[in-house]
């Protein structure tokens, strides 16, 4: 069962990766990248790294892909010609509708069968927040603090670089 899941997800991950490379339009590349990141998050959870799976969704699928999309939209016209305004997109709409219905059916099945009921008690897997936190704040405290300095430097650097050039 898990093997079947692995192969389906692996196919999706590779499809996302190929989509990033082959898409003519940068917006589609970013969306394929999102697919790849989301599938990798599922793999992380399958590999007992629950915390990193959630972080993957928040940081990569959330922040980084949104940042890419922002920049693509800001750069604008010459990069993303009629990406979202094309008129004859009927096949895409049908596929989206079917995918939405499948997701809805899965969700309804999970709710009815009780598989999605909230679990009581703590998750004690090897990659739980508790375990990661303990290691992060004892053995790896210095790299953790240095990461905060790095993020601050990157933030200042990004602001400095992205200013409109004032002179010349």
């Amino acid at each position, binding site marked *: 069962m898990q093997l079947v899941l692995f192969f389906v997800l692996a196919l999706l991950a590779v499809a996302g990766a190929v989509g990033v*490379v082959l898409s003519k339009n940068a917006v589609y590349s970013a969306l394929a990248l999102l697919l790849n*990141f989301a599938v990798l998050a599922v793999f992380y959870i399958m*590999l007992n*790294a629950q915390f*990193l799976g959630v972080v993957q969704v928040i940081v990569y699928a959330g922040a980084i892909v949104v940042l890419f999309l922002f920049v693509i939209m800001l750069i604008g016209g010459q990069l993303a010609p009629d990406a979202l305004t094309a008129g004859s997109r009927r096949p895409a709409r049908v596929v989206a509708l079917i995918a939405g219905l499948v997701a809805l059916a899965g969700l309804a099945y999970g709710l009815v069968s009780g598989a999605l009921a909230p679990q009581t008690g703590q998750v004690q897997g*090897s990659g739980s927040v508790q375990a990661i936190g303990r290691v992060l704040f004892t053995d790896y405290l210095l790299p953790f603090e240095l990461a905060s300095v790095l993020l601050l*430097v990157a933030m200042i650097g990004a602001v400095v670089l*992205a200013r409109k050039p004032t002179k010349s």
Partner: protein
Amino acid sequence: MTAVPTSFYLVLSALIFVIGAVGVLVRRNALIIFMCVELMMNAVNLTLIALADRFGRLDGQIFVFMVMAVAAAEVAVGLAIVMALVHHRDTTNVDEINLLKG
């Protein structure tokens, strides 16, 4: 622990890494090259987590955490550089960007 052998994950991440590397080589749009670099980084992250699970240690996961922090910083600075390039040169084609050539 899992039913899926670790080697499957390693082969998958190698595949994604190679796709990303090919993307860096064949595409000329700076943004897409950037996305392909992210793809390669994620492939390596998958390797680290698969091996962390295989050996039952958390160090690999901590490493992935640090890689994610560095990746976030890198994306912020890199996209700022792309924005500055568009301001200066009005292009994202890496073949036309030769500002450092004397």
